[in-house]
């Protein structure tokens, strides 16, 4: 997707500073709970056991489309030349889910496998995924 203007980009909050710093370096930072091993994103405490220490990992970049939509209306000038465009929720193989644009529209379906890419805006970047087919 080639955007015609800068889309809204998130500012880091107290739980996501590390996540967004890693994103700018083209990595998705994962946090693995040091107590129960559940992998999650941008947490101060574990959403499973409330423990507050994590091992930092990097997502391999493989995932599955949990859900998607194609947006047919222009809500923001950044997307005025892109409609309809696909975006959705990708479940990383490590477990966490993330909102992202999805390319290769012909393969986009729930359960389709995707590969991580990035879209850069100056010194910022957001995750994006390319669909390539069915769940293996």
């Amino acid at each position, binding site marked *: 997707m080639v955007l015609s203007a800068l*889309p809204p*980009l998130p500012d880091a*909050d107290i*739980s996501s500073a590390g996540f967004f710093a890693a994103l700018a370096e083209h990595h998705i930072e994962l946090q693995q709970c040091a107590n129960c091993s559940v992998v999650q994103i941008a947490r101060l405490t574990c959403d499973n056991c409330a423990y507050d220490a994590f091992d930092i990992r990097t997502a391999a970049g493989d995932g599955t489309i*949990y859900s998607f*939509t194609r947006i047919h209306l222009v809500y*923001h000038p950044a997307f005025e030349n892109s409609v309809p465009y696909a*975006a959705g929720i990708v479940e990383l193989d490590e477990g966490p889910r993330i*909102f*992202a644009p999805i390319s290769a529209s012909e393969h986009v379906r729930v359960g389709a496998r995707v590969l991580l890419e990035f879209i850069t805006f100056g010194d910022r970047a957001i995750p994006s995924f390319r669909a390539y087919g069915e769940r293996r």
Partner: protein
Amino acid sequence: MVLDASIVGLGKVGLTRDATAPAIELARRAVLAASKDAGLRLDAVDGLLICRTSAATDAVLGLDLQRSLGLRDLKLLQVVLCEGASSISAIQTAALAVTAGVATTVACVFADTPVVPGQPARSGFGRLKTTTGVEGLRYSAGLFGGAATYALSAQRYLAQYGVDEEYLAGVATSTRAWAELSPEAMFRSPLTRESYFAARYIAEPLRLYDCAIPVNGAVAVIVTTRSRAADLEQPVVHILAAAQGHPGLPDRSGFDRAIVSGGQVAAAAMYEQSGIHAPDITACQLYDAFSICPLLSLEAYGFAAAGTAGELFRDGSTRPGGRLPVNTGGGHLSGYYLQGMTPVAEAVTQARGQAGDRQVTADTILVTNDGGRFDYHAGMILGTAGQWS
């Protein structure tokens, strides 16, 4: 606990796509109309609960409403912020307050003015520059507005249960069939399956008729105790049960945040409180900002197994003449979108027996509200008769 609470007043203002007064003024007029409807002097109101759309601020509609109304010495005053679940959450709070004696007569009001003639409702998103945190990545991905996130829920639902867009079409056309009978509904012309599918997509799989119709307006209700209700103007409408449910599911493997409604939590609480269960309920007024919502609600409240609620819309059960009437005023989809007060207003009108051509057996009515990405839910059961108390 048994609630000692009844809805005795209903006020509606606006319900139009034309320009109106600001939200706080619509709210003021709606509270006045509700107290008049109840046969109460405004100064009998000693509690005020104010609901607004999540994008609005105190400057649009806030605690100043007390002074606008000239209400003195209130014993309960709050802005209730629970996204689409605010209206029933407020009414639940009012019911608990009058039951406990914290206040005697509580007005609950929602007002919104999203429609600016000549300007698309979505144009506000164009000014969005920054967002916050990981959740903000939805906007970077181009997922603006409720249609986008409810589309993700709808798409997941269809895939999970192996059903198709006919399920959504069933909701939209059933709701329109009721709107044809409802003088206040915005869209009253018949909607066939063919015209549903001919309409453009907004956010796949949601088409035009899967999305609610924003209007400018306000709805207020007045809640008081049962004994006070008996002396007032209107047929009594008791609040037989009320509960909230907020799943708080993580967004990761093993959880289905997109299609788990808090209705499951609320249903269990309400059925236990009241002894009423799904087979006892004669009509449903379900939050339907998008057509996916009533499907999840009917399943959460035990009217259908997971992934099968669409059959109730398809086989006519939910339509005029059906055995389980749903959204008899046209809902948010074909009626008017006042975020959670729409199903409340229709439930009160039905329970009073004032629904005219669309009147159904309405002695035990389920009313629901949903907000967030199905993150926030509130429900209540309204009833007319003493059989439950």
